[in-house]
């Protein structure tokens, strides 16, 4: 490593033991291992502390910002926004961090807030180090009692390639451990505990605690999805890398049960909180309940997503098995690049492994023809002025515009006139025959347009009106009456206007969303 990543040194200071007769300072490998584990856990939090230490080095006055708080919040957001397939969008994370940063120092300009958010995010990724990660040094006693300093490499937020070539963020296990200490526990049991807690809290009206429990439940859901994602990804590469005989089917069955279970629970919880929200008098209470509704809805969304993936898992496995296992029989024996090269090389020490990869590179990368320049050409090349880059590109030809003749059957004025005719009061619907007669008096062409609009109104766009929250909607009904008109035949429709409950629709829309 020519550029060492900023080291977060966690070095234990141990006193050397002078004689062999003295009691050993390390009581045994198990205790030593426990110590190493705790040192690693401690190291994971170090980058967060480090932020507050290093903010003094930033150009400008940044001491008002609590960087560790912003960092934890960033880890939090990346974890929650991690999608099933990709990670969280970095820009979105920065945007969502802004309110918190702004709250810490509301008088500072927005640019500064954004700079702080970006600085924290970049430092959590550790942009600037080669590996974009952190390294901590800790000491252990080897089997022979010798003290060895070891490097512990870890990442908090890692950048992963997303669809379309973008870069997305994912939190690592280490970061999740920093965020919620107990996530090493069994996913299912932790989930059940959180559920029970949530229900109790809601029934007692302790909404603040309930929110915390709900959020924790959501972290676990994310973790579940992550486990499945990894298994499926591995399957796509190689069906046999994953135990599809027992482990994965068991997991899928378990996860499906879990989704069904969670869905039922969360819907019950949702009903409860909605009631709490609507009945609450205290505005603070009401706000918390509303937030809880959002969180639980997000949980439900995630479960639905997880479920659809679970249902796809079986077919995916079968397709991959067909593709991978029943591919054409071997023509003749060849070199097994994975089994005979990659697989033995990876566990080797990097020094030795490099010799193998060097040999592969030297013979496998192809050749390059060395450029040979004549001295007279060189002079020409050096004296040639650089070609001017056209910044704007070639000039665009002036487009030859031809005025298209207006070929609409009806003019704008006619449409306006027809709509005006059809702008009926909601308590007084009219017969189509009357409307047609009125239209004919205004303009001999107008009845056609009115008839067309009336026929369209027989199947009014209710869905669109609902989504767009329109206050009124034109409709027409056939009550069996025959139309008597010199130009048109058919039913004498009753045309009227229905008023829609905009407030109710808006509320229903937001509930569903």
């Amino acid at each position, binding site marked *: 490593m020519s550029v060492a990543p900023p080291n977060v040194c966690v070095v234990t200071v141990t006193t050397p033991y002078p004689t062999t007769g003295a009691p050993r300072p390390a009581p045994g490998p198990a205790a030593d291992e426990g110590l190493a584990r705790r040192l690693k856990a401690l190291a994971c939090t170090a980058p967060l502390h480090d932020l507050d230490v290093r903010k003094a080095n930033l150009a400008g006055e940044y001491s008002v910002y609590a960087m560790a708080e912003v960092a934890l919040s960033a880890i939090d957001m990346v974890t929650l926004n991690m999608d099933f397939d990709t990670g969280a969008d970095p820009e979105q994370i920065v945007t969502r961090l802004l309110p918190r940063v702004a709250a810490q120092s509301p008088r500072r300009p927005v640019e500064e807030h954004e700079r702080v958010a970006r600085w924290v995010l970049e430092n959590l990724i550790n942009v600037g180090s080669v590996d974009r990660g952190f390294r901590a040094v800790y000491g252990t006693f080897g089997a022979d009692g010798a003290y060895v300093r070891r490097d512990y490499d870890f990442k908090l937020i890692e950048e992963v390639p997303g669809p379309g070539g973008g870069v997305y963020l994912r939190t690592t296990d280490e970061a999740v451990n920093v965020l919620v200490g107990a996530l090493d526990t069994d996913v299912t049991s932790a989930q059940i505990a959180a559920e029970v807690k949530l229900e109790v809290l809601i029934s007692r009206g302790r909404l603040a605690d309930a929110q915390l429990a709900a959020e924790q439940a959501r972290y676990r859901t994310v973790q579940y999805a992550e486990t499945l994602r990894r298994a499926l990804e591995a399957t796509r590469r190689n069906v046999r890398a994953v135990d599809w005989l027992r482990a994965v089917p068991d997991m899928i069955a378990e996860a499906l049960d879990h989704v069904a279970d969670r869905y039922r629970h969360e819907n019950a919880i949702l009903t409860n909180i909605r009631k709490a929200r609507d009945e609450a008098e205290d505005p603070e209470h009401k706000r918390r309940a509303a937030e809880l509704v959002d969180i639980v809805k997000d949980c439900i969304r995630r479960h639905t997503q997880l479920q659809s993936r679970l249902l796809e898992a079986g077919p995916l496995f079968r397709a991959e098995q067909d593709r991978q296992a029943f591919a054409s029989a071997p023509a003749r024996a060849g070199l097994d690049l994975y089994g005979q090269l990659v697989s033995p090389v990876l566990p080797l020490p990097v020094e030795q492994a*490099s010799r193998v990869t060097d040999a592969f590179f030297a013979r496998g990368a192809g050749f390059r023809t060395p450029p040979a320049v004549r001295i007279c050409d060189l002079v020409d090349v050096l004296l040639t002025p650089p070609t001017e880059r056209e910044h704007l590109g070639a000039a665009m030809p002036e487009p030859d515009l031809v005025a298209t003749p207006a070929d609409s059957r009806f003019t704008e004025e006619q449409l306006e006139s027809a709509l005006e005719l059809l702008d009926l009061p909601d308590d007084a619907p009219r017969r189509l025959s009357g409307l047609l007669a009125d239209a004919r008096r205004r303009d001999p062409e107008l009845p056609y347009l009115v008839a067309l609009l009336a026929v369209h109104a027989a199947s009014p766009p209710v869905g669109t009106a609902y989504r767009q929250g329109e206050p009124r909607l034109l409709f027409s009904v056939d009550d069996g009456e025959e139309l008597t008109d010199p130009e048109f035949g058919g039913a004498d429709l009753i045309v009227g206007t229905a008023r829609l409950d905009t407030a109710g629709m808006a509320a229903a829309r937001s509930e569903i969303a």
Partner: protein
Amino acid sequence: MTEYRDAETAPPAAYGDAAPAARSGAPSPVTAADAADAARLVSYGLQPKLLPARDAEYAELIRRHREEPAFARLADAVAAGLGLIVLEVSPRAGMAVAAAEDSVFAVRMGEYSRRAASDAADRFLHGLAHLATATMAFPRPEDLADDGYIGRITVNGIDGFVRQACRRLEERAEEQGENTDPASDAPGLEAAWRVWTRRSATGATKDARRLAGSTTGIVGKAVAFLVDSGFLQRTGDDAGGTFRTTARYQLQVRDMAGSAAMAELLELGVVPVSDGSATLLPPDDTGELDLVAEAGLPFHESDSHRGDGHRGDGHRSHGRESHGRESRHSQEDQHSHS
């Protein structure tokens, strides 16, 4: 080459006696024009992206090489003199040549990547990227052996494949309670897989290009280099860039790189055992699972190998084999028409 056609210069003695001309049936001496043609064929071979199907003169020289042993020997001698190893001369691959180790055409790691020259970890990562690219391009032994096979790879797929293999090693080390953290004063003894795991997969840059030091950046460099070597062809931009292999790449990996790396591995005392079949075998404890014959595959890797293979990535199309054959035939067809 025409200017030498009528030249009356004496043929080189070394080739003159052993050159029965295939066309006339009577022995005819090798002329300077033949030498020029042979050198021209080698110069075509030095343009790896050029295919005989696209160039009538190249195709004609390939045909001469295949039909006239004397001319073939002459062309091979020209190549050998330039420090080139002839892998194959065929309408599908053209004159596939590889650079010998001390040749002026050989690519050195230090020229390939400046960082790799000074940094042991980067050097390894660049080498592994090439090895992994070949592995993903030819995941099974038979893929490397089958001349009609065309591999399809993606940059993200290669990175994902190596990461997955590394993760398995990490899990295994954890299961065995091994401490894989390297000693601070001996970075060379760090397990190779850790170097890849540690490096970030991608990273945001100011100009929206791929971060050169990330693993996808390193793989991206490798495939771009292989495209310039005429070993890969770019087919799309999905998943960091999708590519298909050429006949030359298969030859290069099969006849040059694979064996060289194997020799190095054997020298290190690591002897990978293979019976020529794919690495993944049914487990020995099949009986315990009470499997009915042909009821399904047991999805465990064999204990003797302890290596988990990853054959093909998700982006490879299902019809890859048939497609490969088709395109080979179409190439040959083109050639026969020309």
